[in-house]
């Protein structure tokens, strides 16, 4: 299907409303990105989202958009509380997949002699790979229910972190309204021994160096300085989240028939926000989101312990503290101004990050003068970015920004490109240590498989949807 596109300006492209679309599509991209997008099915997916009932504003796509399943990855869609829908496919299988950034008091140069030791220890201590689990931590049924209800707060209550950590997490690490009774036994079983594990695929744990500071005042507020060691954690709700999604896709297949919602793709199945099916999904989703917050909190604790042991430093010397923690696969109730009126909307972000401006009540107190931090990981060979949310993002994209680089090569194409190359040795020659559990993962995750994240964040900044604060360079990458 050829999708009609109209250029609005250098960074904005409209998919005009046609046929069964209820609204238009709005894509943030450079001309080069648009050319690449026209080769795949992502734009058609934006069009498909625009057909869903009760959608408010355009169906949005961030510059890291690529072909997903059902919704595009890099998609944002807001739905009216009365007439709109919620779609588990619009959140994705990895509910509350997200990124957490830690800062330290260390300088990268001083760390270098112990970097390999540190990478090896982290690879050993933080379980990664397919089906990774903690042999030392199997939750009881009651404990797991508490994890779903309390999120990161559960982990802190168990001694894995402190209250200050919670102050620097989206929603303080606990989405309200989680109901463990709505999470299936099967999902609970998948989650029982996966808390505190990284998983596989594009998930990672990365030691980084602050390479460049773009905004000194904001960097100071975030506690960032050039040459500093930071740590990024990218993971989500593991098997528990995948199962919640799968369980509710089944429920929503039926719900879509029951409420007579016509679907251009079965993965877009959904239910009216006022229906019991939607209420149940959102309560189960919140539980899975909380599991993900707890997961990143547990990994943070393991990272702190490992740094202390390997570097023989005290917590006070290391000061590994949380800068921020964002969800990038989630549906959330939020209030937004639409045509001058305040409205309660269910905002779906699938491969998109919340990006609230300075002064917003949900921006943490410590950052209220600069805006909410937005964490944008790139591929394992290049760099990641720290950005801040803006007023323009709040007004235009329901306070949303991109979430990463976005893939450009299929996995098979990436493997082909990697053939004959020792990727781990090549990255080591560039000063990046890689430790990976899966054989195919490294080849499929080669830097060339992704867009250059610098181009992605440039589109965001040029369009006014984010402000770049700093660029981080990988030193050591733990992959699943």
């Amino acid at each position, binding site marked *: 299907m050829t999708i009609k596109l109209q250029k609005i300006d250098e960074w904005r492209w409209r998919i005009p409303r046609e046929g069964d679309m209820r609204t238009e599509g709005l894509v943030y991209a450079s001309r080069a990105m648009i050319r690449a997008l026209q080769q*795949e099915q*992502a734009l058609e997916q934006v069009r498909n989202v625009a057909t869903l009932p009760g959608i408010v504003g355009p169906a949005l796509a961030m510059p890291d958009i*690529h*072909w*997903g*399943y*059902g919704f595009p*990855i890099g998609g944002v869609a807001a739905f009216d509380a009365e007439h709109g829908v919620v779609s588990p*496919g619009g959140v*994705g*299988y*990895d509910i509350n997949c997200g990124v957490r950034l830690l800062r330290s008091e260390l300088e990268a140069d001083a760390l270098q002699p112990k970097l390999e030791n540190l990478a090896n220890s982290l690879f050993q201590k933080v379980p990664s*790979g*397919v*089906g990774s689990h903690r042999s030392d931590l199997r939750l009881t049924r009651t404990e797991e229910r508490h994890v779903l209800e309390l999120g990161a707060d559960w982990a802190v209550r168990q001694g894995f972190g402190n209250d200050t950590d919670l102050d620097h997490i989206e929603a303080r690490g606990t989405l309200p309204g989680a109901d463990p009774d709505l999470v299936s036994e*099967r999902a609970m*079983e*998948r989650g029982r021994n996966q808390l505190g594990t990284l*998983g*596989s*695929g594009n998930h990672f744990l990365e030691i980084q160096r602050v390479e460049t500071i773009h905004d000194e005042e904001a960097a100071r507020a975030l506690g960032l300085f050039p040459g500093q060691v930071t740590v990024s954690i990218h993971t989500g709700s593991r*098997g528990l989240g*995948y*199962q919640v*999604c*799968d369980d509710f*896709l*089944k429920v929503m*297949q*039926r719900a879509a028939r029951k409420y007579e919602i016509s679907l251009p*793709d*079965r*993965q877009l*199945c959904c239910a009216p926000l006022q229906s019991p099916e939607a209420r149940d999904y959102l309560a189960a989703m919140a539980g899975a989101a909380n599991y993900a917050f707890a997961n990143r909190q547990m990994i943070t604790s393991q990272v702190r312990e490992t740094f202390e042991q390997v570097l023989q430093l005290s917590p006070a010397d290391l000061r590994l503290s949380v800068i921020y923690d964002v969800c990038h696969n989630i549906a959330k109730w939020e209030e937004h101004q639409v045509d001058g009126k305040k409205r309660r909307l269910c905002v779906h972000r699938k491969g998109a990050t919340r990006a609230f401006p300075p002064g917003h009540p949900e921006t943490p107190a410590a950052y209220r003068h600069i805006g909410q931090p937005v964490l944008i990981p790139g591929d394992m060979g290049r760099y990641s970015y720290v950005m801040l949310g803006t007023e323009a993002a709040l007004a235009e994209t329901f306070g949303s920004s991109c979430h990463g680089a976005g*893939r*450009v*090569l*299929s*996995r*098979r*194409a990436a493997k082909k490109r990697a053939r004959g190359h020792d990727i781990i040795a090549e990255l080591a020659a560039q000063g990046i240590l890689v430790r990976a*559990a*899966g*054989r*195919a*993962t490294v080849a*499929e995750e080669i830097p060339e498989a992704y867009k250059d994240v610098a181009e992605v964040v440039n589109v965001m900044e040029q369009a006014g949807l984010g402000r770049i604060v700093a660029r981080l360079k990988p030193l050591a990458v733990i992959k*699943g």
Partner: protein
Amino acid sequence: MPTRQPSAGFRLLEHTADIGIEAWGPQLGDLFEQAALGLKSLLIGTSPVAEAQTSPVRLDADDPGELLVAWLNEIIFLFETQNLVPGSFRIEQVDRTGLQALVCNEAFAPDRHTVERQVKAATYHQLYLGKEADGWHARIYLDL
């Protein structure tokens, strides 16, 4: 579906972020077996599996497409939660809304089995399952 292949088989489909399986066979059971073999190839490549044991599977669904999604997700579930590496699949009984099968498998052994990649789930994205002149055909995308 564009392909017209004899007998039964599967092939992998390109996707930017994920991967798809196209499967076909003269009978519905052949198609379910082939789709499972496709999933197995994604999970463990060509690692040999001793098939020391069997896991019985019994599934119900509202339509054949949903049944295929449930079947592949069951194999992923056994792999992830019980560490059981799939070897072969015996479809004992299948119709449009129900499946009874045996997954012949063994416990994961790191010295013999290579885990290729994680498969999070089988999805409904562009899901197709239908009977054509030369037998059954299906297309299913997986979230990796």
